[in-house]
């Protein structure tokens, strides 16, 4: 009846955080009775956009209109009173209170100075019934499954006369059936005229339930599209920012010397059927010395999870691991390091850089960790090592005694790479080593990767940027939805091939071979 009316309009939203542009002139609009997906890779600006909308972050420039009236939410609470409600990824309810209490917490119905429990319970039942759910509202919340708890959270959000409902990764902890139930509820709410913003990284679900899709990339608005008229492959291309036509050469050109040698090489690392329940489906993987193997896929598809299993950060609960044909048990990073592995993790700040220590200390950390408490690297050796790698990797720092936190992101990344090179690894795992650093440093790091392989190091390379993937890798495994779905061999790697597999458009490793 009142369909296609603009419920929410966000115009030209811009937001800076120290050193980064989080959002740059982003536009977004939501109609009544529509489900609108916001998609994008990590750091694309999805959560910042939501935070700006709900008042968790202030708007720097740009305007927001709700039902034609300009609004500026000062806090999530204020936004809710305006009619914009959010259900977060982690259900933030009180597990030890009853369902009814959870729904009405903070806005209790009073009757002659006391809380009217009868009324509250009745209204809770009614609001859950709206979502086709019937349950005992006086039971504690934690007696119900996560899926039900999510429904309670939604019902709580809806009860505040919501016009806009934001669902932030609501399905990440739900199984297939539970997700399906959620979609049924979403479709029902649609018919009631509520506009739903759906944030997810599961592309299948985007196509299952949404009407339109807005794509963000690096804080920029790529575009808003009708779901029905945007093929999957194009969606992935827009998320990653590559045109299908673009083609870039491979660093390992055919006829490259040493290629024959490498082909004969025995795998350095071999995992058979390794996996971890709920994290990554069992898979087979092998990496030989002198080759760069890529792991491609969208965020959360299982790339990083595989690296963590191999390096012993997470324990595999199935499968066997072999290093140089010997079966080994890797229970911790320390075990992996002693077997000759190194791992530059994805999150530089939280997982690799020790900010308050010097460049020297950061560089020798893993080598000293490998040697343990008993064998001390003398200060002189430490300095020699640090200076060697500062020179080798062209790290720009006033000296090896500079605190690492004063270095730029790219140089910090080089310091972590130096940390692993100092251990002289046989297998080096690099998880998004070029993310968030400038083009120059990116180029240098890609060169380092290729050179390492030429020197006989086995390199496992994870990146969201297909261009550098195609440039650096000889083989690539492709992931989708926590599963390795195929492998592209020499000559089969192309941006289009990888994208097709990621999007599930044509499935199967053969797809990569028939590129235009």
């Amino acid at each position, binding site marked *: 009846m009142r369909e296609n009316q603009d419920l929410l309009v966000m115009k030209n939203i811009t937001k800076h955080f120290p050193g980064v542009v989080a959002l740059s002139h982003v536009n977004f609009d939501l109609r009544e009775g529509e489900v609108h997906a916001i998609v994008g890779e990590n750091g694309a600006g999805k959560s910042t956009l939501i935070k700006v909308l709900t008042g968790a972050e202030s708007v720097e420039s740009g305007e927001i209109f709700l039902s034609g009236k300009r609004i500026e939410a000062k806090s999530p609470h204020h936004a809710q009173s305006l009619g914009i409600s959010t259900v977060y990824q982690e259900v933030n309810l009180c597990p030890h209170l009853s369902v009814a209490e959870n729904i009405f917490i903070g806005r209790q119905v009073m009757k002659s100075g006391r809380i009217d429990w009868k009324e509250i319970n009745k209204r809770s039942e009614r609001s859950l019934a709206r979502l086709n759910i019937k349950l005992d509202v006086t039971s504690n919340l934690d007696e119900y499954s996560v899926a039900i708890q999510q429904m309670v959270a939604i019902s709580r959000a809806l009860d505040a006369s919501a016009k806009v409902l934001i669902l932030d990764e609501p399905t990440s902890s739900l199984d297939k059936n539970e997700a399906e139930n959620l979609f049924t509820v979403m479709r029902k709410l649609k018919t009631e005229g509520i506009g739903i913003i759906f944030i997810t990284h599961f592309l299948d679900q985007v196509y299952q339930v949404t009407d339109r899709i807005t794509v963000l990339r690096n804080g920029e608005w790529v575009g808003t599209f009708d779901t029905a008229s945007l093929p999957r492959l194009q969606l992935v291309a827009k998320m990653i920012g590559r045109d299908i036509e673009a083609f870039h050469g491979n660093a390992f050109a055919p006829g490259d010397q040493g290629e024959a040698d490498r082909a004969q090489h025995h795998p350095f690392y071999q995992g058979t059927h390794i996996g971890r329940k709920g994290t990554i489906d069992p898979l087979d993987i092998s990496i030989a010395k002198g080759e760069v193997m890529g792991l491609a896929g969208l965020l959360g598809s299982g790339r990083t999870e595989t690296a963590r299993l191999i390096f012993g*950060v997470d324990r595999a609960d199935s499968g066997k691991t072999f290093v140089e044909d010997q079966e080994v048990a890797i229970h911790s990073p*320390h075990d992996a390091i002693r077997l000759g592995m190194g791992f530059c993790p994805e999150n530089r700040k939280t997982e690799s850089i020790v900010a308050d*220590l010097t460049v020297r200390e950061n560089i020798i950390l*893993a080598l000293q*960790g*490998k*040697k*343990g408490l008993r064998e*001390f690297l003398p200060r002189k050796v430490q300095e020699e090592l640090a200076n060697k790698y500062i020179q080798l990797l062209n790290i720009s720092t006033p000296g090896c005694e500079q605190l690492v936190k004063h270095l730029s992101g790219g140089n910090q990344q080089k310091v972590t790479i130096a940390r692993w090179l100092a251990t002289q690894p046989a297998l080096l795992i690099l998880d998004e080593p070029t993310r968030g650093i400038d083009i120059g440093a990116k180029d240098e790091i890609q060169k380092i990767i290729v050179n390492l392989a030429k020197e006989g190091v086995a390199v496992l390379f994870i990146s969201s940027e297909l261009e550098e993937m195609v440039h650096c890798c000889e083989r690539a495994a492709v992931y989708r939805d926590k599963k390795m779905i195929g492998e592209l061999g020499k000559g089969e790697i192309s941006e289009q091939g990888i994208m097709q597999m990621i999007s599930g458009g044509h499935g199967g490793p053969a797809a990569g071979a028939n590129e235009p």
Partner: protein
Amino acid sequence: MKSVLKKGITSHQVFWPLVGLALLLLFNAIFTKDFFLLEIKDGHLYGSVIDILNRASVLMLLTIGMTLVIASGGIDISVGSVMAIASSTIAVLLSGKTVDVNQHLVSNISLGSALLLTLGLALILGLWNGVLVSYFGLQAIVATLILLVAGRGIAQLITSGNVITVNHERFFYIGGGFLFGFPVSIFIVGAVFLLTLIFIKRTPFGLFLETVGINRVAGRFSGLNVPLVTLICYSISGVCAGMAGILMTSEVRSSDPNTMGNFIELDAILAFAIAGNSMAGGKFSLSASMVGALIIQTIRTTIYSRGVAPEIMLVVNAVIVIIICSLQSERVKTTIARYSWTQGTAE
């Protein structure tokens, strides 16, 4: 000139605590009669300064352990109770029967084994804390709170709730004897301090400890045995508390499980913090911590020797602590710098 100074000496962490200590000593030099006077009696040195060093030794021992524990990102509030347990243990071990006409005391076991047993027990208590924190994943303040409460009870159990008087001449040498004219306790603290310093600077432990305190995940990813590093810190803290308990028992020649080491964990934490160390863990300076412990004892001695009324003693104490801590606050420093700069240009 000023900027050169600022980058040189003042950037060293031990500088500002030393300034605080120097101010306190200066105050005493002016207002307290004979503060720096040293007398030699029977070949031993006596005087307020020696007195401060001697009395600070217990706190300095505790602060060494506390510094390592807080640097690792934890805290150990059980040190007072560990002191009490050590005190009760050594007192019971050394008590015995008086035999023969000369009223000689014969203790149950030899002094050496009594000391070893007591320190061994303190080590076990430290390990207990460490295991709870690093392997069971308890929050440090909760894990050590258990021993803070239970330890007091254990100490009382050991002495059956009584105050035990110790009669063992050779034992008294630890807390009351002199070596080369100086109190023995100073040498004990000096030795423990130096050993710890060597452990930190000449083995990988210092690097591992700071890494664990700053970014434990990065430490794990770099192959460090994070739980072991944490465990070592709590163990050292336990042994330090044990030594402190022995020292104090020897000094007062008795063991009172009800009062020994009460609230002393707060002094140790304060000594750590007053030295400009971060309560969040990570980078630390053991030398600065030692200066912090000396500051606390100097304040105490000063207040006593100035004859401050007991009712306002704690208030005076607090005011001095606030002043010294503010000296090190970056914000206060920049405010003062800005103020003096505007004053300078106005002239």
